[in-house]
């Protein structure tokens, strides 16, 4: 019971330009640090020098050049892109299934990708594609899983939230069983690389891996920003959204395809990295409010910064060995989520 209406909590949220500029600066600082820090420390000046010479078309065959341009920069950029992609997908899936505890993997994308990648790593499927075989396998797996969940959940013509969650969970369990079966039947040496992939890593990042995830991220974020109002309306419930002039069936279908695409491509290049798509959207909502016209751009920037920082930790914390990044995001993400749930009842709805 509420006693009085006079205790108005003032709006302590940041104005949008400040918030966006802040996130962008944070991302740049994190990326700069991540490029400079490692087994060989490189000063910011030297990093700047390497990057500007490459952009100007001059290449120097120095050790710094090799470390910065060939190894760290593609790795940092890929981590940023994947972090942004998973956060964006998570934000949308939470609205799509009307559940704040949903993440991009709920729709079976990651488990489908795992089947594809495991098949490649253990049995050499798509071997003719060389380095691209794992990516190809996981994209195909993700798309198949997505299409299956979509087809099953669509029975009856609508993509109802509860159906979508149930189908996603059931199909994910099914695909995980296939992955386990493949690992069980596969050769024990290759199992090591499967495990590494399942926990996620940017250790094999190259420039050639960047264009596909970056392009899909830009396309999907661009589309979603035009749908900010529609997403807000959908958060009111599908029927309320329909009464607000949103064509709900079409919007749901488009959102489903967009998030599957951006998350599937991210999983294909980095493996299954958990918690980012679940936790970062909530942290961003706490900071900028729930309006998706602010959450989406801020979330992409914050997700990129979070993933870059997590990857920096993953490769420095037990150097010269490398920790799977999924371990880092879970170690940070799980306590963060517990704190959020305890402090913010909205995650579970209000009691009573």
């Amino acid at each position, binding site marked *: 019971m509420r006693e009085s209406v*006079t205790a108005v909590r003032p709006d302590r949220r940041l104005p949008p330009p400040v918030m966006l500029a802040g996130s962008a600066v944070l991302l740049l600082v994190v990326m700069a640090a991540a490029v400079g820090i490692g087994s060989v420390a490189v000063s910011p000046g030297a990093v700047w020098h390497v990057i500007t010479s490459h952009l100007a078309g001059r290449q120097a065959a120095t050790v710094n050049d090799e470390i910065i341009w060939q190894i760290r920069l593609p790795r940092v950029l890929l981590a940023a892109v994947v972090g942004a992609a998973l956060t964006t997908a998570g934000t949308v899936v939470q609205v799509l299934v009307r559940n*704040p505890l949903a993440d991009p993997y709920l729709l079976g994308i990651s488990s489908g990708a795992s089947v594809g990648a495991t098949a490649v790593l253990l049995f050499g499927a798509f071997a003719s594609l060389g380095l691209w075989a794992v990516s190809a396998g996981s994209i195909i797996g993700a798309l198949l899983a997505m299409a299956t969940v979509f087809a099953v959940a669509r029975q009856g013509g609508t993509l109802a939230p509860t159906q979508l969650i149930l189908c996603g969970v059931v199909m994910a369990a099914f695909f995980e069983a296939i992955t386990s079966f493949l690992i069980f039947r596969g050769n024990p040496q290759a199992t090591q690389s499967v495990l590494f992939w399942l926990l996620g890593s940017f250790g094999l990042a190259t420039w050639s891996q960047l264009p596909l995830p970056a392009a899909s991220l830009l396309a999907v974020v661009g589309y979603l920003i035009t*749908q900010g109002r529609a997403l807000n309306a959908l*958060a009111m*419930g599908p*029927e309320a959204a329909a*009464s*607000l*002039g949103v064509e709900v069936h079409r919007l749901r279908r488009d959102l489903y395809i967009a998030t599957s695409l951006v998350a599937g491509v991210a999983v294909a290049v980095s493996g299954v990295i958990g918690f980012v798509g679940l936790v970062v959207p909530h942290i961003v909502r706490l900071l900028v*409010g729930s309006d998706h016209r602010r959450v989406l751009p801020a979330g992409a920037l914050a997700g990129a910064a979070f993933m870059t920082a997590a990857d920096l930790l993953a490769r420095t914390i037990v150097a010269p060995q490398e920790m799977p990044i999924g371990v880092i995001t879970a170690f940070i993400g799980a306590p963060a989520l517990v704190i959020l749930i305890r402090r913010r009842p909205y995650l579970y709805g209000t009691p009573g």
Partner: protein
Amino acid sequence: MSLELRDLRVDIGGRPIVSGISLRVPDGQFAGLLGPNGSGKSTILKAIYRVHRPAAGQILLDGADLLRLRARQAARRIAVVAQESPVEFGFTVTELVMIGRTPHKGPFDRDGARDREIVADAIARVGCAALAGRSFHTLSGGEKQRVLIARALAQQADHLILDEPTNHLDIRYQTEILELVAGLGVTVLAAVHDLSLAGLFCDAVHLLGEGRLAAAGPPAEVITPKVIRAVYGADVLVIGHPETGAPQLLHRPASGARTERTVSEIPPLQA
């Protein structure tokens, strides 16, 4: 500004849920849609706000076919307060009411000064100005319902559809909400579960039984023991409200001591 249903039939899963529904809500009238659970109240409303497609019949808005309008255009004419609750991501009251501007905005339009004015005005009209900066999920049930009505007002539609707006509310909020709606001056069609509340606030009521209209007219003509027994299968007493004369329901125990004396002392309906 009128809403009219002509011989409406809605099927769900191939089975007719409501059929032969014809009714008219004239300009500025607060019409109640009554009936037992499962009689088709929500189904009719959902056909009006495009969740269900009618199998037959017409929905007319000022004489023009509503379903021929695009969803966005229709949303500028009819606003809805449905039964579902928003996902509680922590929208503030102002943010939530701003969502009511959706049908007026293109994908690249920003919220202008005019939108903010309309939103502030809508919040003030439902008496929630002091709550504007609060998170929606921290509000009481009655306050939430007011804010959802403000969202509908920000839509600037001249017709309002409400699906059981007083459901789950304490009695204080039940009367508050219906009084608010009755005073808005827009054309309203509301599904109302509580017959006494409908009797008190509605200008006209349409009573559904098993998917068909069983009775329609001013509350005093529809809410009678005879009609209630026919539609609900319930044995009730109806008395005139001591202050307004509006029909009010009294429940009767199915068995137990009743005496003619207590019944005859109750003032008759057309007092």
